[in-house]
């Protein structure tokens, strides 16, 4: 039995269909990512699994408990870190954890030990007596991570765990997530619109768009489905026949004065490829990203709404102009 089993889960808000019939099984111990743009239905799905939102139809069980019929049991098995911070800023770090322990029924004799354990895991033991208002953004996230796992839940939900954090803090947060998931042997389900996050942290990724799951697999497998790396060579008369017969080439396309070659392991085979093409003007290599997978599946970009981390500023400008239309 999977730790989370979802069948035809649907949620409609008035006229808006936020989640349109999701089927999904999440296995115990894995780090699972729901990857999709804002508005795809990620937060709503998590909300239903945490029993905060009532499903319109369909069913979901978590650790064997039905989310509609036994919400209290589900909540005991669930830890959540929301997108926006929910710490009690009037309390100290230690007190925040203690309050959580009391609310979730952690036995009194285990409380202190458990709190210390979690504080050490996120490197906050030294600041635990300080009021959380004085914590930095990264520290608050870490405390919330510690809090989420305090009561040893079966599943930890993270809604956009590194949204708004700087690159170093993001990388550290990913390390903490992985370390804690492994140590506590908790299943982790996170939602994100950052493809690097899905790539680097998750064992499996479910690509979600407009309330439906478009694909689900390990990140590498999903990228494999693109057929390989993309090499774009600007050249006047490419020897198409010769290129196509190369064993590692899966597709060749002529496009506007350049040849687009899909091939496996470009970094290994590029020298040979270039040796058979005369008068190469310029070469560009692109390794497929989850965003490419996303575009292939849905026809649009993941990050239409968040230009803050797009690849180049030229792209941002283009997007900005587009929106102005």
């Amino acid at each position: 039995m999977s730790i989370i089993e979802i069948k035809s889960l649907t949620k409609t808000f008035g006229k808006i269909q936020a989640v349109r019939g999701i089927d999904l099984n999440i296995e115990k111990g894995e780090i699972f990512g729901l990857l999709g743009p804002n508005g795809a239905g990620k937060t709503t799905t998590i909300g239903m699994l945490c029993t905060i939102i009532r499903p319109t139809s369909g069913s979901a069980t978590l650790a064997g408990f039905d989310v509609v019929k036994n919400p209290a049991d589900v909540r005991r098995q669930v830890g959540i870190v929301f997108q926006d911070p929910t710490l009690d800023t009037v309390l100290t770090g230690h007190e925040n954890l203690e309050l959580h322990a009391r609310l979730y029924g952690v036995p009194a004799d285990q409380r202190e030990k458990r709190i210390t354990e979690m504080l050490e895991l996120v490197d906050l033991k030294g600041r635990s007596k300080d009021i959380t208002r004085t914590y930095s953004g990264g520290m608050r996230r870490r405390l919330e991570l510690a809090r989420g796992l305090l009561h040893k839940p079966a599943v930890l939900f993270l809604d956009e765990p590194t949204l708004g954090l700087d690159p170093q803090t993001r990388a550290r947060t990913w390390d903490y997530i992985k370390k804690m998931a492994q140590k506590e042997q908790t299943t982790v389900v996170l939602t994100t619109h950052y493809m690097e996050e899905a790539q680097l942290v998750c064992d499996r990724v479910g690509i979600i768009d407009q309330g439906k799951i478009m694909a689900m697999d390990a990140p590498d497998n999903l990228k494999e489905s693109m057929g390989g790396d993309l090499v774009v060579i600007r050249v006047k008369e490419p020897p198409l026949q010769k290129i196509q017969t190369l064993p590692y080439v899966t597709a060749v396309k002529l496009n506007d004065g350049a040849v687009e070659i899909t091939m496996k392991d470009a970094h290994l085979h590029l020298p040979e490829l270039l040796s058979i093409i005369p008068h190469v003007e310029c070469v560009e290599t692109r390794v497929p990203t989850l965003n490419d997978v996303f575009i292939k599946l849905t026809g649009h970009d993941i990050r239409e709404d968040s230009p803050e981390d797009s690849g180049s500023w030229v792209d941002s400008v283009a997007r900005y102009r587009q929106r102005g239309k």
Partner: protein
Amino acid sequence: MGIYALWWREFIVFRREKSRIVSSIVQPLMWLFLFGSGVGASINISDINYRDYIYPGILTMSVLFGSVFFGLYIVWDRKLDVLKAVLVAPVSRISIFMGKVLGGCTDVTLQILILFIFSFLFPSVNPWGIPLALLFLLITSIALVSLGLAIGSMLESLEGFQVVSTFVVFPLFFLSSALFPVDNKLPLWLQSLVKLNPLTYAVDGVRGALLNVSTFPFYIDFGIITFFAVIMFLLGSVLFSRMK
């Protein structure tokens, strides 16, 4: 137990906000020693110095303001998403509500106890009446924290604070006979409003206990204020459960 966890949290917050505690004690004292002494120089009521006369009413005022605003602060908790972590825990809404009520009552009761210490400065006050007065004030507090939570769970923004203060809290205070007696000297319209105000009976009960002067019999005061508390508690718990 969920209720205890929340009560514990409120207690920590209370201890931490020392400036709030100090001002919540100083304000009633100013009413008593600045306003009360001032008016008392010219006026006695039922042969009691005015300053002593309003002592029960000012205690009730302290409970009124302390309780209602405590409950209203739930709007802050919601805005800051602090409540979210609690709402998601395996604790029932009603437990959270009760924890908050207990927490609020404890806050207010501790403030009142400090004000009771000053009772020796009021010669007409009978110290043996303090336990009964405390009982009245406690029940009133339960009612008013519930009321505050009830309103707070429906308010969407912090602007509501001013509206509630002006249209709920101040009328409840001024029309409660805290500052003037309920008798036939009052114009009819004022008399009726005062008699309709549940707090009038709370003030009357406290005044009866501390000064041996009351307009209504004990059982009426006690009955009405208890009934009011029950209604408010039920209302508050229903609205709180429906919140968000």
